[in-house]
C-alpha cells in the first residue's frame, strides 16, 4: 500500500528505522541508580478515534456491562484495526474503554483540553477550585536536579495543547520546559541537551559552551540578588510575583550549573522544519527517552499536531478537521480517521520500543516509565464520552489487559440524553497514587446529573 511505502521510505530518510532508535552508549549512566525514578510520558492526539473501529471484543463477553480480558491472543486480528500496531506489545499495554469526561460537561466554564488534565480549569481555579494538571503535580513531586520539571512539546502555531495541562495551583499559566513549536525541533534539542558536554569540543581548555555556562551562572546569581533586594520594598502581591521570578532564575542557575556533573552524551540532533509525523516520532523516540535517560526530566508531554490528509490516505487539501474528523461517522472519512489513529498507534508502539531499548537496572527504562496515550475527545466529533485510553509500561498497573467500563450513569445536565461511563478523573487519581502521591480526588469532585443524582468524581478507578 502506497501509504506505508511512503512512511517506510520517510522513516529511513529520518534515520528512524527500527534498529536506529538510539545509541545504547548513551544510557550507561542510568544503571548507576539503585532506585530508578518513576517517569511519565503523555502522548496527546487531536480529535478522537472512530467509535466502533478501535474497541475490541471477545466471544462470550457481554455487551453493555463491565468486562475485562487478557490481551494474549497471538493472532494480530484479535486487535481492532485501529490498535493493531500495538499487538506485538500486547503484554505491555492496558487498554481502557468507556471512561467519560463527565466533569467537563458539568463545568460551565469548560476549557477543553485544559480540563482533561486538571479536572478543573483556570477560571474555576480562580473561583476556588485550584488544581494543577496531572503532569505538573507529578513533576513537582519528582524534579531532577539538572534539567526540567517537565518537557512539553506541541504544535506552536495553534498552540492547542498549550492551554491544556499547564495551569498551576493559582490558576496562572506556566510553561516550565515548554519547548518551541513543531517547526523548531532542532531548537528543542538544543534547549534540552545544549548544556551537555559537546564531544566536538577538545578536552582540557573550556569550550564556548562551558564559558557560556559559567557566564550565565554569574549573571544569574547577580540578577537573583537584585530580585531579592527589590522585593523587600514592594507590596505583598508584588513581592510574591518577584519572588517567583527569583525562584525561576535560581532554578535556571541550578540547571545551568548542575549539568556539568552529568555524565551523559548528547543524542544526535535533527533538523528544524520536518513534517509533523517525523517531529512526533523524533520527540517520542529520541527527545523524550534521551532526556529521561540523562535524567534531564521525568515528565514529558507531546501534544501531537493534526496529521496531514496525505498521511491518512485522504485527498490532498481536504480539511482534516471538518471533512475528516467531524465527518468520521460515515465513510470514507471513517476510514481516513481510522488510518489517522492507526498511525498514532504505530507511533505509540515506537514509543514503547524506544523506552524498552534502554537498559535500566535489571530491566529497561520502560519498566519505570508510564506511557499514556490520550486522544483529545471520545471521537472525531466533540463527544467527551467513550474515551479511549492506552497505557504501557510503568510497573504501576497490571498490563496485558483490556478493560471495558459500562456506560450506565446519567450524565450532567448539558449533555444530550446519553448515559456515560466512569469519570476520567478516577483514572488520574489512580495514576497519581501510582506515583506515590496521596490523593483521593482531583479537581472537581461532583456534579448533578440529569436524573438528579449526584455524580461522584472522586476515588481511584476500580479494577485498574
Amino acid at each position, binding site marked *: 500500500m502506497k501509504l506505508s511505502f511512503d512512511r517506510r521510505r520517510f522513516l529511513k530518510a529520518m534515520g528512524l528505522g527500527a534498529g536506529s532508535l538510539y545509541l545504547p552508549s548513551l544510557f550507561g549512566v542510568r544503571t548507576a541508580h539503585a532506585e530508578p525514578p518513576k517517569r511519565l510520558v503523555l502522548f496527546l492526539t487531536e480529535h478522537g478515534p472512530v467509535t466502533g473501529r478501535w474497541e475490541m471484543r471477545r466471544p462470550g463477553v457481554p455487551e453493555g456491562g463491565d468486562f475485562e480480558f487478557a490481551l494474549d491472543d497471538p493472532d494480530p486480528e484479535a486487535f481492532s484495526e485501529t490498535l493493531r500496531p500495538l499487538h506485538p506489545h500486547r503484554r505491555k499495554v492496558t487498554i481502557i474503554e468507556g471512561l467519560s469526561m463527565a466533569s467537563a460537561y458539568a463545568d460551565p*466554564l469548560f476549557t477543553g483540553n485544559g480540563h482533561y488534565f486538571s479536572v478543573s480549569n483556570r477560571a474555576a481555579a480562580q473561583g476556588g477550585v485550584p488544581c494543577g494538571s496531572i503532569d505538573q503535580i507529578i513533576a513537582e513531586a519528582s524534579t531532577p536536579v539538572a534539567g526540567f520539571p517537565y518537557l512539553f512539546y506541541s504544535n506552536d502555531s495553534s498552540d492547542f495543547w498549550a492551554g491544556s495541562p499547564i495551569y498551576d495551583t493559582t490558576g496562572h499559566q506556566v510553561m516550565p520546559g515548554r519547548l518551541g513549536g513543531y517547526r523548531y525541533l532542532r531548537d528543542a534539542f538544543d534547549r534540552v541537551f545544549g548544556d551537555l558536554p559537546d564531544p566536538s569540543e577538545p578536552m582540557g581548555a573550556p569550550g564556548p559552551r562551558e564559558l557560556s555556562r559559567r557566564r550565565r551562572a554569574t549573571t544569574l546569581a547577580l540578577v537573583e540578588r537584585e530580585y531579592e533586594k527589590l522585593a523587600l520594598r514592594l507590596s505583598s502581591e508584588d513581592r510574591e510575583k518577584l519572588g517567583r521570578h527569583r525562584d525561576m532564575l535560581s532554578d535556571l542557575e541550578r540547571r545551568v550549573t548542575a549539568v556539568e556533573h552529568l555524565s551523559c552524551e548528547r543524542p544526535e540532533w535533527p533538523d528544524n522544519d520536518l513534517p509533523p509525523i517525523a517531529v512526533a516520532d523524533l520527540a517520542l523516540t529520541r527527545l523524550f527517552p534521551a532526556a529521561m535517560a540523562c535524567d534531564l526530566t521525568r515528565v514529558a508531554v507531546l501534544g501531537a499536531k493534526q496529521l496531514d490528509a496525505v498521511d491518512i490516505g485522504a485527498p490532498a487539501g481536504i480539511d482534516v478537521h471538518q471533512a475528516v474528523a467531524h465527518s468520521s461517522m460515515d465513510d470514507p472519512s471513517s476510514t481516513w480517521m481510522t488510518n489517522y489513529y492507526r498511525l498514532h498507534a504505530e507511533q505509540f508502539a515506537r514509543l514503547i520500543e524506544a523506552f524498552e531499548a534502554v537498559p535500566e537496572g535489571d530491566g529497561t527504562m520502560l519498566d519505570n516509565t508510564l506511557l499514556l496515550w490520550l486522544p483529545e475527545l471520545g471521537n472525531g466529533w466533540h463527544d467527551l464520552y467513550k474515551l479511549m485510553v492506552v497505557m504501557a509500561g510503568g510497573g504501576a498497573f497490571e498490563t496485558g489487559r483490556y478493560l471495558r467500563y459500562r456506560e450506565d450513569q446519567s450524565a450532567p445536565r448539558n*449533555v444530550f440524553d446519553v448515559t456515560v461511563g466512569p469519570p476520567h478523573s478516577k483514572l488520574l487519581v489512580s495514576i497519581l497514587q501510582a506515583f506515590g502521591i496521596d490523593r483521593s480526588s482531583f479537581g472537581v469532585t461532583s456534579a448533578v446529573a440529569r436524573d438528579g443524582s449526584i455524580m461522584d468524581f472522586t476515588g481511584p478507578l476500580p479494577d485498574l
Partner: protein
Amino acid sequence: MDRELIARVVLAATLATACVTGSEADESLLARAVDPASAVDEALCDVVGAAPARRLSRSEYLATVRDLFPSLDLSSLTIGSDPTEHGFENRAELLVPRPMLIEQYNTAAADIAAAAIDDPSAIVPCEPTLEAEAMCGAKFVETFGRRIFRRPLSAEELDTYTGFLNAERAAGTGLEGAVQLTLEAMLQAPQFLYRIELGEGPVEHGAVSLTRFEVATRMSYLLWGSTPDDELLARAEANELATAEQRELEARRMLADPRAARMLVEFHRQWLDFDELANEPKDRARYPEYSADLATAIREESDRFVSRVMWRGDGTIRSLLTSREAEVNPLLAELYGVAAPESGWAPVTLDPTERAGFLTRANFLASRGHALEGSPPLRGIFVLDRLLCGSAGGPPADADLSEPAATAEGERTNRQLFEERLAAPACAGCHAIFTPLGYAFEGYDAIGRHRTTDHDAPVDASGRFAQGEIDWNFTNAIELSERLAESPEVMRCAADRWYAYASGNAIDAATRCRARAFGDALVEAGGDVREMLVRYVTSDEFALRPAVMR
C-alpha cells in the same frame, strides 16, 4: 487543534450566566454597557488606581529593546506571548513570570549584549585606555544603566553593577567582556523587566506621588508602548513633568512622534484582534485569489488604517468605524474594487456604498469567517463583545460548530443556512440577540469581498438589535457602522478598554469610576482618543499611586 473548542473557551465565560433563559439574557447581556453607573461603587471613586508591578508585555519588551538598541537587528529574538483578557496582553495580574520566559529573557539578554558589544562606542561612553578602564566601566553603568532602568541608578545599584563589572574585568574578561556581562545582567534585572512604581513623599488620602522618573515611564509606556527617550528622561531630571501643563506639553510632543502611531496600532491590534486572520484558512477552490500575499496585505491594511485614521487623521472612534480612507496595494485594490497603485501601497477612498470603517474591511470580515462563508455569529459576537462590551458566552458543550455551508445541499444563502441551524431551541435564545448584528455583514464573503447576491439570491443584510436603551434597525453593515459610531455605549466601551490597557487593571467595581472618567474625557474630546490620553496624563491621578501596604 480544535479551534472550536478554543472558541468555546473564549466565549464560555459569560453565557452560562447571561443566557440561562430568554428574559434573563435580555436583562444581563448588555447590562454593563447599557447602564455602567449601576455597577460603580462611588465609595471607591476617591481611591487612586492600583499600581501593581507590571512585567513588560511581549510587545513592550520588543519595542523597548528596539528603542534602546536602534542599530541592532533584533528580529531573531524569541519572547513568548502573554495571556490575554478581552484581547489585551498587558493586564498586570496576568503578566506573571514563567520559567520559559525567564529562559527567553536570559537568552535574549545574552544575544543583545553580544550584538551590542560589536560596536562598543554605541554603548560605552568613553575611549578606554588601560588606566581609565575602571572609570570608563563605571561611566557605562551610570549612563547606559539610566536608560535601561529608566531612571538614574541608586548609589547601591551603582555599587552593585560597577562592582560586578570590575570583578569580571579583573577576572580576565577585559573591559568589553565585562560591559557585555553587565549589560546582560541589567537586561534581566527587575528594574528593567518590570515597571515598578515605588512613589515617594508623604501619604495623602492613601496615595503617594510617583517619582518624576516613574511619571516619565508611565507616559512612555502609555503613549509609545516603550521606554522613555533621552528627551523625556531629561524632562524628568529637570522636574518638568510635575504640573499638568508640563505633562501636556510633553504628551503632545510624544503623540506627534511615530512611536505614538506604533502604540495606537498596538492598542487596536489587541482590541480588535487583528491577528486572528492567520487562524482562518480559506477554501482554495472557492477563493483562488486568497494567496499568502493577499492575506499578508489584508493584515497589514489594518495597521495602515489605524495609523492613518487614529494617528494622522482625526483620531476618533467615529472615523475608526466609518472612515472610507484606506491604503491599498495592488492585491487589495482588486479586492476592494479600486484603482490599483502600480506597486507598493497608496492611499485611496473606498466606495462609500460598500465600505465604511474597520468593520467593513477585509481583516475583520475574513477573520470572522469560515473557509467558505462569513460567520454571522462570530461577526455578531465580535461587535457585541469588542465594541459594546457585552457578553454572549459560549455554546453548550455539544453544539454543532461546524460551518453550515460545508455540508449544505441545495441552493440556499449563508444567512438561510445559519437561520436554520440556529432555530434549535438550545441556540435560538441567545443567537436571536446577537447574531442579527452579524447578518449585517452578509454583503461580504469569507475573504471580505463585497457582494449583492449569495447563491443567486439577493443578499439580506438587514437586522435589528435591541438591548436596553438601544433599538437599532439596519439594512447593511454601513448602516450598522453608523449606528455604532453614534452610540454612547460604544464610546463608553472604548473608554473602558483604553482604561484597562492604560492601567493594566481589570474593569471592576473598584476601577469603574476611573474607566468612567476615561469615558467622560473621550466624550468631551469629541471621541478623539489622543485628546482623551492627554486628559488622562494631565489628571492628578496620573502622577499618584496608592501607598504600599507591606
